[in-house]
C-alpha cells in the first residue's frame, strides 16, 4: 500500500445475538461459509489491500481465535518486521477488562506509538465483505477527512443489526445511531473507521480524561460537528452477521452463485487457515443440489440448499435440506434435517427427524449427539 496504514480488528465488546454459537468462542471465530471464520473476511480484505501490520484486540473467549490465527502465516502476515499481533486485555483487573475499547487502546498505546505507520483502519469482525481499503484511504485523502466511515446502502440487512448513518449530498456524515434503532436511512455503518493514528491517540486520551471509553459512542459521535467525518460507500457484497437469523440467512445467500463468485474472489481472495482435508467424496447414490460443500466431506445421501463444512459425513438415505452443518458433523442413515444449524462435531444418529423453521432455525450446540 502506498500509504502507511496499520489495521486494527477490534473485538472489544463486539456484541452478538448468536446464542449458543458464541457460547464457547468469540464472534470473530464463528464458522461461516463452509470453511471460513467471520474474521477471515476483514482480515483478508486488509491483507489484499496491502496492509501488512494488523493488530487483533482480543477480548474474551479467545482460545479459538489464537488457534485460528496462529502466526498469521495463512494470511501472509508472518513477517520479519510487521505481521499479525494478537493483543488480549493488558490487565488482570476484572473491572478493567469490562471497560470500553478506548481504555484497551490506551493500555496498548506503546503498540501504536512505536509504529511509524501514519494511518489506522479500525474494524469489527462480523462484517462479511470484501473491501479494498486502498480505495477507502484514497477517498479519505481526497476529502481531507478526519475520519472516514465505510458505509453500505442496502435496504434489507437480512436481520443483521447495524447502526444507521445519515450523510449529506457530498458524503459528510451528519448522524450515526448510537444503538440499533429506527433511524430512517438505508445506509448502514460497516463499523470500519479510517483516521490518522495521532488523531486516534488524541481521541483515546481526551475521551478517557473525560471518563468516556467507547470509540464510536463517545469519541466519534460527540465530534460529528467538530471533525470532518465522511462516509465511503462500499459497493460489494455485505452480510452483517450478529444475530442467529442473519447468520442463517447470510450463509444461505452464498448459495446464489453470483454472491459466491463476488464475495470470495472480488476484489481479492478470502484466506483462511489451511486444514489439509482431501477433496470431497461423492458416492454412488448421492444427490446434491444447490449447495456449498467443503473438502473432506463424504456424501452418500441427499443434500439440498445446504452448507456443509469440512469433514461432514452424510450417510446413506439421509436428507439434509436448507441447513448448515459445521466441521465433522455426521448425519446418520435415513435421518432428515431441515432448517437446522449444527455446530462442530454434532452427531445425528440414524432415523432422526429434525426440523426448524426458515425464520427460526433449529440450533444444536457443539458436540451434541441427537
Amino acid at each position, binding site marked *: 500500500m502506498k500509504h502507511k496504514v496499520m489495521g486494527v480488528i477490534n473485538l472489544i465488546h463486539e456484541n452478538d445475538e448468536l446464542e449458543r454459537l458464541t457460547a464457547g468462542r468469540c464472534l470473530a471465530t464463528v464458522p461461516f461459509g463452509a470453511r471460513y471464520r467471520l474474521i477471515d473476511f476483514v482480515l483478508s480484505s486488509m491483507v489484499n489491500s496491502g496492509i501488512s501490520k494488523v493488530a487483533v484486540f482480543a477480548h474474551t473467549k479467545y482460545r479459538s481465535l489464537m488457534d485460528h490465527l496462529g502466526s498469521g502465516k495463512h494470511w501472509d502476515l508472518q513477517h520479519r518486521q510487521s505481521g499479525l499481533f494478537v493483543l488480549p486485555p493488558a490487565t488482570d483487573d476484572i473491572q478493567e477488562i469490562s471497560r470500553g475499547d478506548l481504555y484497551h487502546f490506551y493500555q496498548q498505546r506503546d503498540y501504536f506509538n512505536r509504529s511509524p505507520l501514519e494511518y489506522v483502519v479500525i474494524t469489527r469482525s462480523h462484517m462479511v465483505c470484501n473491501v479494498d481499503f486502498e480505495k477507502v484511504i484514497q477517498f479519505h485523502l481526497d476529502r481531507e477527512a478526519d475520519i472516514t466511515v465505510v458505509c453500505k446502502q442496502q435496504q434489507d440487512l437480512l436481520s443483521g443489526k447495524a447502526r444507521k448513518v445519515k450523510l449529506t449530498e457530498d458524503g459528510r456524515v451528519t448522524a450515526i445511531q448510537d444503538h440499533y434503532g429506527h433511524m430512517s436511512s438505508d445506509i448502514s455503518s460497516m463499523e470500519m473507521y479510517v483516521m490518522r493514528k495521532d488523531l486516534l491517540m488524541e481521541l483515546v486520551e481526551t475521551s478517557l480524561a473525560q471518563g468516556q471509553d467507547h470509540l464510536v459512542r463517545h469519541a466519534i459521535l460527540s465530534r460529528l460537528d467538530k471533525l470532518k467525518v465522511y462516509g465511503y460507500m462500499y459497493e460489494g457484497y455485505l452480510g452483517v452477521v450478529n444475530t442467529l437469523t442473519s447468520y442463517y440467512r447470510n450463509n444461505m445467500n452464498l448459495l446464489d452463485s453470483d454472491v459466491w463468485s463476488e464475495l470470495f474472489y472480488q476484489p481479492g481472495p478470502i484466506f483462511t487457515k*489451511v486444514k489439509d482435508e482431501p*477433496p470431497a467424496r461423492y458416492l454412488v*447414490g448421492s444427490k446434491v443440489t*444447490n449447495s*456449498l*460443500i*467443503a473438502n473432506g466431506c*463424504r456424501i452418500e445421501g441427499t443434500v439440498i440448499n445446504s452448507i456443509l463444512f469440512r469433514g461432514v459425513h452424510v450417510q446413506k438415505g439421509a436428507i439434509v435440506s436448507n441447513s448448515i452443518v459445521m466441521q465433522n458433523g455426521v448425519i446418520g442413515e435415513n435421518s432428515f434435517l431441515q432448517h437446522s444449524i449444527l455446530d462442530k462435531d454434532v452427531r445425528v444418529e440414524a432415523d432422526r427427524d429434525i426440523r426448524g423453521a426458515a425464520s427460526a432455525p433449529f440450533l444444536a450446540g457443539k458436540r451434541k449427539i441427537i
Partner: protein
Amino acid sequence: MGRKEMIAMLLAGGEGKRLGVLTKDLAKPAVYFGGKYRIIDFTLSNCAHSGIDTVGVLTQYQPLELNRYLGIGSPWGLDRRDGGMTILPPYMKQKGGVWYKGTANAIYQNMSFIEPYNPEYVLIISGDHIYKMDYELMLDHHKRSGADVTIAGIEVDWKEASRFGVMHIDDEDRITAFEEKPKNPTSNIASMGVYIFTWSELQKYLIYDEASRTSNHDFGKDIIPAMMRDGKRLHSYPFKGYWKDVGTIESLWEANMDLIAEEPPLELADSDWRIYSVSPNQPAQHIGATAEVSASLITEGCKIEGIVDRSVLFYGVKVEKNSLISESVIMPNVRIGEGARIYRAIIGEGAVIEAGVTIGSPDDSAITVIAVDQFVTNDHLLQEVEHS
C-alpha cells in the same frame, strides 16, 4: 550441525517421458494427482509422518514449477531450524559440472550435503510413486536385521514384474538375488525404489561406482548388484499396502480412478496420515441446481452445473450446464463449456473445453489427454489460451 540418525534424499529430477504432454514443462513429481495433490506430496507426507526432518530434494528436469511449489517445505513441516528441506540441483564445481548421470550419481554429487549431518542411515526415495508408508518402521527393520541396505519390496502382478527390479528373498527377508527389469522375471517381489542404506556403506559404494567407466550410476542397475556381488547384507522390507508407479498415462488415470472406488485401496480421508500439500485457497465447491455428481472427488473452488460421474476434479474447475464428465481427471482451473461431453480423459490445467465439444467416446477405452492451457473448440482446433 547436530547429528541426524537418518536423512532422506528424494529423487525428483525425472522427466517422465511416458506422461507425454503432461510433463512438457513440468517434472514428473510435480504432476497433479488425486484432486488436490501433486505426486511428490505423497512421499513428502510420508517423511513428515515418519519423523524425518531433513530432506534433500534432487531436481534436474524442468524444476521451476516444482521449486516454486516446494518453497521452503512449510506444508510438509520441513521449514526447520536444523535440517528441513533443501533443493539440490546439479551445480558447478571448480573442475566444471555435469548433469546428474543417474540416480546414484545424483547422490554422489551431493555427498557434501549429507556429510555435515553425519547420519547413520540415508533413506533414498523418489517422487514418482503414490503410497503411504512409515519409513520409521522400515528403519526398525533395517536396524534389527543388521543389513547394509534394506529395499522395500511389494508383491506385484506377474505380468508387470518385468517393469521393476525384482528380488528373491529367503525366510528372513534376506535378498538372495536381484534383477533389474528382467525380461522373464522369476520373482514377483518388486523393489519400490525405497532404500535405507547404512551411510558408511553407501558412501563407499558411491565412490566406487563413480570410478567405474562402465556403470550407469544407477541404484537398481549398479549399486545394488555390486553390493550383492560383494556379499553385503541386503534385506527386503515387505510392504503391504497400496503402491502405484504413476509413470504412464494409463497408470496415472488408473490410480486416480482407484481413489473413487467404493472402498478405495488408498484412503485419502485418513486423519492419522493426512496428505499435506500447498493449499490452493479457494472457497467451498458450489454444486448448482442442475448438477448431478456421483462416485467422484471434487475439490474446493469448483463450480458444477453439469453431470459428473466417476471423475476426479481439481480445484477451480467450472462445469457448465448440460455437460457430462465421465471417468475423467480434470486438472485445476479447467473450464468445461455447456453441453460438452468428456469420456475417459485427462484434461491439463487451465484448458478450456468449448461448449458442445465431445472428447473421447463412451465405447472407447483409450484415454485422451488434453495439454495444459489448450483451447478445444468444436473443430478440435487447438491453440494456447491467452492469459490476461
